[in-house]
């Protein structure tokens, strides 16, 4: 095994343990599993007799697009990926990496991969848990026909793919922000507003966002919710024609590759200047 591969593996091992088992990361698990709580609650305590599987599939799609992708994975990736570089700056421990015989590009790649493994495991795992929570109360026959004869399995795979792509897309952007900015919260807030206001933008600008491509991978199309409580700046509105799924996947992967390479190049100029706060 060559040196770069060994170094990548070493970085991944160090960071994975920290991401999965740190107390600071508990809120990410909570965010990922939050939708599952009412789903299981409804299954156990609610009245599910008159519910239609099609209706629940629609509700799941809505939750996935409007809560899971835009909020849970978004903020989860903020927590995981910004912590990889900027978090270590705050902990005053990044210099231990920078004093190793590792190219900065390899360090960024290793950190990105570790963040990716952690985020995909957590968020795709949570999709599976939610899926179970949402549909497990239906009879086994109905469920089997939905999963294996109907669209169930392909929908589930699409959701898992969308969740993984969201981790790749948001992860790369937040890793870059962590390398580039002293306070990466500012770009994160700007991205949140940009992604949220995406529906208000002209068609061309809509495509300069991650959520547009992610929505294109989602199997069920959900119309934008209408506001009726006076909140004219709701961050949850968007309604656009999706791109072909294959194009969306390729574009997101290209975006992630470009941003990660940029972060790697930017990391060459990274200096240690730990502040007091």
């Amino acid at each position, binding site marked *: 095994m060559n040196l770069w591969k060994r170094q990548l593996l070493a970085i991944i091992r160090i960071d994975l343990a920290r991401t999965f088992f740190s107390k600071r990361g508990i809120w990410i698990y909570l*965010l990922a599993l939050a939708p599952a709580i009412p789903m299981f609650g409804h299954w156990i305590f609610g009245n599910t007799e008159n519910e239609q599987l099609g209706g629940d599939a629609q509700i799941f799609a809505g939750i996935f697009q409007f*809560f899971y992708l835009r*909020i849970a994975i978004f*903020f989860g990736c903020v927590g995981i990926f910004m912590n990889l570089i900027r978090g270590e700056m*705050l902990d005053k421990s990044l210099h231990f990496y920078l004093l190793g015989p590792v190219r900065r590009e390899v360090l960024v790649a290793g950190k990105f991969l570790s963040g990716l493994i952690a985020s995909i495991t957590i968020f795709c795992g949570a999709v599976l848990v939610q899926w179970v929570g949402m549909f497990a109360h239906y009879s086994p026959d109905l469920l089997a026909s939905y999963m294996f004869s109907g669209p169930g399995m392909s929908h589930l795979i699409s959701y898992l793919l969308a969740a993984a792509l969201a981790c790749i897309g948001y992860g790369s952007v937040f890793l870059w922000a962590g390398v580039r900015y002293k306070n990466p919260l500012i770009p994160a807030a700007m991205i949140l507003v940009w992604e949220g206001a995406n529906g208000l933008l002209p068609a061309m600008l809509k495509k300069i966002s991650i959520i547009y491509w992610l929505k294109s991978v989602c199997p069920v199309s959900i119309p934008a919710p209408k506001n009726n*409580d*006076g909140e004219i700046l709701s961050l*949850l509105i968007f309604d656009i024609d999706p791109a072909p799924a294959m194009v969306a996947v390729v574009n997101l992967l290209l975006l992630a590759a470009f941003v990660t390479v940029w972060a790697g190049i930017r990391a060459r100029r990274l200096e240690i200047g730990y502040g007091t*706060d």
Partner: protein
Amino acid sequence: MAVYKRTYRGYSGPLTSPTWRFTVLQRYAFKAVFKSRLLLIGYVACFFAPLALICALYLNQNATLLAMVGQKTGFMKIDAALFLNFLSVQGVLAGLVTAFVGPSLVAPDLTNGALSVYLARPFSRSEYILGKGMVLGTMIGSITLLPGLLAFAVQSSLVGWTWFVDNLYLGVGITLSCLVLIAVLMLMGLAMSAFVRWKIVAGALILASFAAGKGFAAVINEVMRTKIGYFLDVQHLLSTVSGALLHHPVTEGTSPWAAALALVVFCGFLLMLINRKLRVCEVAG
């Protein structure tokens, strides 16, 4: 060199009165806050919407302009819905201000052990909280309450005394809504800043609690076919209370009284958090 050799003399100038001593903290905190150029630009940007509203109010009553575009009445209706929408926009900006300013108020003092230095002076914990809170309060008030009342005053001056009297409830509603907003955001900023000592994470948590609260509330409502989820949506609770105060009730969700009660409970929880976290203790070791 010994202190006495430097001919040290204690401060002998006038002292700030104990009642207003908390404003000292506020003064220095402001200096620190506005050191960031980006934050300053963002804060200035918060005044664009109020400026636009006041201009629109003026143009809406300008007979010459209306005649030029061939309209007899104004191009927009000045009612509770307009002010409610205005407060919603400014409320979102106030949330962003809280996320960026709030964490820098308390978290650095806790991380660097400055709280004990403050409290070693003739300065109480409540004064510390009040001083830091007033920074947020002043900033949020200046982008919500102040422009809201200014817009109301401009409209009153343009239309006349009768409009003012007939719509006085709007002025009262704006004031009370903004005070509720200020109280909630101020406590939220301080609590998160005290709870999470990392400035960046605390800011992210404030942003996330708005977005995630709203989203999670919708998830509960959809999945459980209920409306109890609204109690987790702070934005919705604030809108419901503001709507009731401006006599423009929000049609969906909780009742105004329930929303107000939920906000009181939420504020109580935040106060408890602040009380628990803002303590000076020495760890032997």
